[in-house]
Structure formats: C-alpha cells, structure tokens
C-alpha cells in the first residue's frame, strides 16, 4: 500500500468526524500553546538577561568594600568553646551567635590592598571610588566642589565632553570640570567656557585633623555652601577659642565644662591638602536617557574629574586615609569568565565584594525554575489532551468496527490499519502543535507589549528586543512533543483496530 494512501485514509477518517477531530485538536492546540509560550518567554527572558548584561561591561566589574565586621569573625566564632551540658545543635547555635557578636579584625580597603588587587592575574584596573568634597579655586574665586577619579577609557565621561579633551593617562595632574561648576562661577557663555581650558585650578581638601572634637559649621540658606574664606575664618576661631574662653560672660561651671570639651581634644590644626590641576575639558551632566542605561559601578557624577590614580594619590595625602582606606573600589577584570575567580580571591583577602554576575546567575536560575514549572504544566496539559485522543480514538475504533471489517475483507492488512490510526494521531498532533505554536507567536505580540510596559514602569531599563523568542529548536521541540504524545496515544487504539476479527466485524451493526 502506498504511503500517500495511508495518509489519504487517515485524513478521510478525520474529515468524516470533523467535530470530534476539531475538539481533540483543540486540546492539543491548548497544550502546545502553553508549552510554546512558556518555552518562548523562558528562553526570551534568559536571552534578555544575557543580552542586557553584555550591553555593558559590568559583568567584568567587581565592587570591593572594606570589611568593617571583621574578616575573622566566623572563624573566631568557630573556635569559641561553649561550655555546659547541651545538645550539639544548641552548642552550634550558640557558637554562631557568639560569632555574630564577636567583632573580628576589620579589613580596610587600604592603598596596599588596592595595589595587591591590581597585581592579580586578569585584573585590568582597580579604580578607587570616593566622592571628595573640597574647595576648587579658579582665578581667586572658590567654590565647594565634588571630586572623583575615573579611568581614561570612560565612555560615559568622554561622550559628555562639550569642550576640550579627556585625559589619556590614569596618572597626570589634569582634570575636567563640570558645566554646572563653571555656571556657579558665572562662566556661562561659550567663549568663557573655552577660556578655562588650560587654566590651573587649585583644589583644597580641608579635614578636621586626626582627633575628633569641636567643629564649627556655618549653616547657610539652602543651596548655598560656605566659601573657602568663611571656612578658614571658622577654623581660626576654633583654634583661638580656648584662649578667649575666659572673656565670655559665662557662669564658672559652664566655663569649666566648655574648657573641658575643647582643651586637648583638637590641638592639631586643620588638615589641609592642596594641589593644582590643569583643566583639560568641560563635561555636561548626564541626560535622562543616559541615566536609564544599564547600571555601571564606574559611572560618577562630580564637579571635578581626575585620572583615577592621580585622584587616589591626592586622596591618600589626607591624614588618616592610609589606615582608614577608601569607601570602595571597582576591580575591572579583563574577561567576564575570570570574574568569579577574581571575586573569590578578593574575598580571600578578607574584603567584602559584590559582582552582578552572581546576581544574574541567581536570577537566571529563578527564571529557569519558574519557566521550567510552566513547561511541566504545559506538558501535563498535552498529556491530558493525549488521554482525550486515546479515548476518542478508542470510540472511533468501536464506531468504525464494521468499516474496519470491510477494509480487511477487501485487502487491508493489520499493519496498514494500525498505521492509518497512528497517522490520524500524528496528524492531530501536527495540526494542534502547529496551530499552538502559531497562536503562541500571535499572542506573543500583545504579550510582549504588555510585559514591556510592566518592565518600563518598574525598572529604568529600555528593552530593545522582544521578551518572547521563537527559535527553530523551540518550534521543532513543541511540534515533536505534540506529535510524539498524540502518536503514542493513538498506538493502543490502533492495535485494537488491527486485532478486530473481520468476520465478527462484518456482522457488527
């Protein structure tokens, strides 16, 4: 018998029972739709996470911080002896509680640590991150200004350059100034902005000295900061205050109290670090669109931007910074494949660290579990549909008993009859599976728009591509699954059909 005839007989039988075929196909269609949709969004979300991660190079960056809790807290806790009669579980709990309350030796992110991290293999750069506030003096006029260090490669800074150029080395006595700082100086027109290029700017970092104690603060109207002159004047008053305390008309006990608070607490003068930098460029502020871009730990916004090594040198000239270290640093790895290894090496140094890679892997695992669950539900839906098919086809075998007997009487073999029924199952699977994938694809269009609007409302990320993907493997897997399930469901009815005794079947009414 010809293969085409087998299909012809199967199609004719399906056509003969149009309503039943349509209902059965609908069951397969629904299962396939859910399967295709869950596979599609599952893969789409994975792809989107991966794509968005690679749009920026933040997978190569590790944020490192000082470990204030102490690196040895856990190990110290493990060594604690917990005396007394108790269960092992309770002893462990107490040991952990002791560890949690035992301050280990804090590990600061010092210059030595920065140098050590920079020497690790596959580390491209270690960028200290700090936001300093100091006085910038240009043409005898001072302004309180923020200061940060960045890499010469910084794409973010380079595209915000509106005059001059960006520095090319990580250590040189140059800086860029913000358009807003110049505005605060009254430099607004293009000519005066261009005029500052090449000029020297003096930056003064003024700290309270090593010891803590009295601090005089000038609280000015909102939006105004104390000038350098005002700050210096306040510092002088603070220095001279102990000497003039007796001139104040205070009761003796208050005078004694104040003397006790002031004397010997801050004998040293204010710590002042000052340096000159040549202005090489002017930067504008980031636009709202630029701020929507993927998060980058190296992105900074400051009035003055210095090459990061020059900034670090400047920072570490302040009193106490060698011991205190810096707030945090960003380690840039040459390739994201090495990020985890470097991350571990940093933790081994007792520092705390954070990498987005780990977060992304966790997110991908969560989504994998969610969509894996959805896929299982879809598979169950298809299995239920398959049971429906098996039932429908068994009914069909019963109804077609006489027809099967006639076909046997005129030459149909058992194998051929079995194949006809199996092909009927496969056709239902192909039709339902194909329509299911098609429906999932059609539904993905409004679905994608809806998910995008949800994403746009909750996170400042603009997704460029669809969250639903329909690669060839997905279409093939859904179709293959639907066809396999429905074909398997048709096997038993097919065997029943083949086993029908033609003599008995011809007597069947």
């Amino acid at each position, binding site marked *: 018998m010809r293969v085409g*005839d087998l299909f012809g007989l199967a199609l*004719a039988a399906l056509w*003969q029972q149009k309503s039943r075929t349509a209902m059965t196909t609908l069951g397969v269609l629904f299962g396939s739709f859910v399967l295709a949709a869950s596979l599609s969004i599952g893969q789409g979300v994975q792809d989107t996470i991966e794509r968005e991660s690679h749009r920026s190079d933040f997978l190569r960056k590790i944020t490192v911080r000082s470990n204030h809790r102490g690196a040895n807290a856990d190990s110290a806790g493990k060594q604690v002896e917990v005396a007394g009669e108790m269960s092992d579980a309770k002893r462990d709990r107490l040991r952990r509680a002791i560890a949690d309350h035992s301050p280990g030796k804090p590990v600061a992110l010092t210059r030595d640590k920065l140098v050590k991290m920079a020497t690790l293999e596959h580390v491209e750069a270690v960028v200290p991150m700090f936001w300093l506030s100091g006085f910038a003096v240009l043409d005898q006029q001072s302004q309180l200004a923020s200061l940060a260090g960045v890499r010469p490669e910084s794409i973010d800074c380079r595209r915000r350059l509106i005059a001059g150029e960006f520095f090319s080395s990580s250590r040189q006595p140059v800086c860029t100034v913000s358009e807003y700082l110049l505005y605060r100086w009254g430099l607004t027109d293009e000519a005066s902005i261009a005029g500052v290029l090449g000029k020297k700017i003096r930056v003064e970092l003024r700290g309270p000295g090593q010891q803590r104690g009295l601090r005089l603060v000038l609280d000015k109207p909102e939006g105004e900061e104390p000038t350098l002159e005002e700050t210096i004047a306040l510092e002088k008053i603070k220095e001279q205050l102990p000497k003039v305390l007796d001139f104040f008309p205070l009761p003796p006990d208050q005078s004694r109290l104040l003397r006790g608070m002031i004397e010997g607490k801050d004998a040293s003068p204010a710590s002042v670090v000052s340096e000159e930098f040549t202005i090489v460029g002017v930067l504008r502020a980031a636009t709202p669109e630029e701020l929507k871009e993927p998060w980058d730990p190296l992105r900074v916004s400051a009035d003055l931007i210095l090459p990061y090594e020059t900034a670090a040198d400047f920072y570490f000239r302040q009193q106490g910074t060698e011991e205190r270290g810096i707030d945090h640093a960003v380690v840039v790895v040459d390739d994201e494949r090495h990020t985890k290894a470097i991350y571990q090496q940093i933790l081994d140094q007792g520092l705390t660290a954070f990498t987005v890679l780990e977060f992304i892997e966790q997110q991908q695992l969560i989504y994998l579990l969610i969509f894996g669950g959805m896929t299982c539900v879809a598979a169950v839906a298809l299995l239920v549909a398959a049971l429906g098919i098996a039932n429908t086809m068994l009914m069909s075998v019963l109804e077609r008993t006489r027809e099967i007997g006639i076909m046997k*009487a*005129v*030459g*149909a073999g058992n194998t051929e009859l079995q194949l006809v029924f199996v092909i009927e199952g496969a056709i239902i699977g192909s039709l339902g599976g194909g329509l299911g994938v098609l429906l999932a694809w059609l539904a993905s269009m409004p679905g994608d728009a809806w998910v995008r609007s949800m994403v746009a409302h909750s996170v400042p990320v603009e997704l460029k591509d669809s969250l639903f993907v329909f690669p060839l493997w997905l279409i093939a897997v859904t179709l293959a699954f639907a066809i396999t399930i429905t074909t398997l469901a048709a096997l038993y009815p097919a065997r029943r059909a083949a086993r029908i005794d033609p003599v008995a079947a011809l007597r069947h009414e």
Partner: protein
Amino acid sequence: MPEHSGSHALDGQAIRAVDLTKAYGHADSPVYALRGVTFEVRWGERVALLGKSGSGKSTLLNLLGGLDRPTSGSLDVAGHSIARLTGRQLARFRSVSVGMIFQSFNLIHSRNAWQNVKLPLVFAGQQPRERREVARRALEAVGLAARFDHRPAEMSGGENQRVAIARALANRPQILLADEPTGNLDSATAREVVRLIREHVEERQATLILVTHDEDLAAACTDRVLRLIDGQLAT
C-alpha cells in the same frame, strides 16, 4: 485454464478442501460449523453452496475468502494454502486473488460508489491514476456510470449490490465468492444482479462460488451444487 499464481500448484483445481473443519468456542466444548468437508473446484467452474441457515455455508465462504482460518484440515485456494499464510499474505490474497460479494453489500457509508470500488485497488498498491480508470470502468460495466459520486445511502439496494459487484471485480480476481447476493433484493433487482454476476463470470472465465438457499438461483447460475447439512457435505 485461466492464468493463476500461487505457492502450490493445484493440478488444474482452483479450490481444494480436504477434511476441512471449523470449530468455535472453547476447546473443551467446541461448536463445529464445518466437520470434515472435502471438495474440489476446477478453474472456471461455477459452484453453488446450498444449505439451510446455520448449515455452515457462510463459514465455508469466509474460509475460502481468507477472512478466517480453518481449525483443521487443509484448504488451498488459487494456489494458496490458507492455513499457512501470514497475516500480510492473507491480506494480499483477499485483495488480489478473490473478490467477495455480501448479502448486505458491505459498502462504507461515508464513501461514494467510486471510492468504495477503489478500495481493494488502494490496498493492492495500484497507482492512483490506474485505479481511477479501473474503478470507473468497473462502475460503467455494472451500469452505474451516473452514480460515481453517490454514497450508499443515496442509492437503491440493487445499485448498492452492483457497486459491491464492481468492487469485487475491480482487481480482476479469478475466484468470485458471493454470499446470498440477492438475499436483500426484490425479485426483479435480484434477476438483474444475477445476470450481471453470470455475465462477468462468463466473460472472465472466473470461478464462482455462490452461497444461496435458493434452488432456482443455484440452477440458473452454476454448473454444480454442493449441499451443506450441519457442517457436512451431503453425498
């Protein structure tokens, strides 16, 4: 003698049954439909199987048509030993070697006349173009050129039986087995059907086994009569 093929030569015999027995039911208490039936039919011979209802006529016809297998004894039809054929060979035998006509026509109701006639050709693996032509000619030969697209429910009993005859003859089998072909027809239609069967058998020099309880029909259509009484041939 007509050309025929088969695994066993029958020395000019189209059918040879030796001590043929068919029993139904449990082995402990079998019900015998045929008991040691022995007979031969020559190629081109027309034989009537006469007997009352329950005498085993239809059982014997089913065995001859390869729809059933004997319980014991040997049965050779058109060179094929029915008991020894595999399921696939038996299906092939039914589609090519014999043509069967039933009292109740046994047409597939969802298919039209042309599709019903085509069915044995489909199972025989004939090319679509060829079988279209063969089915058309077969229907024309039984006078149903205008009924190609009609389904069984849209035709009379006589027309349905003519479609069944066309189907039985479509593969040009050398043995035609007819089980009470006029049983469900009025006398005028029955005469027409008998005329058709006789005409085609004579034209093709086919072997005919006609099961009937009608003595007149047997005398009109056949050369020899075999009588079955309680599963045994009357001597």
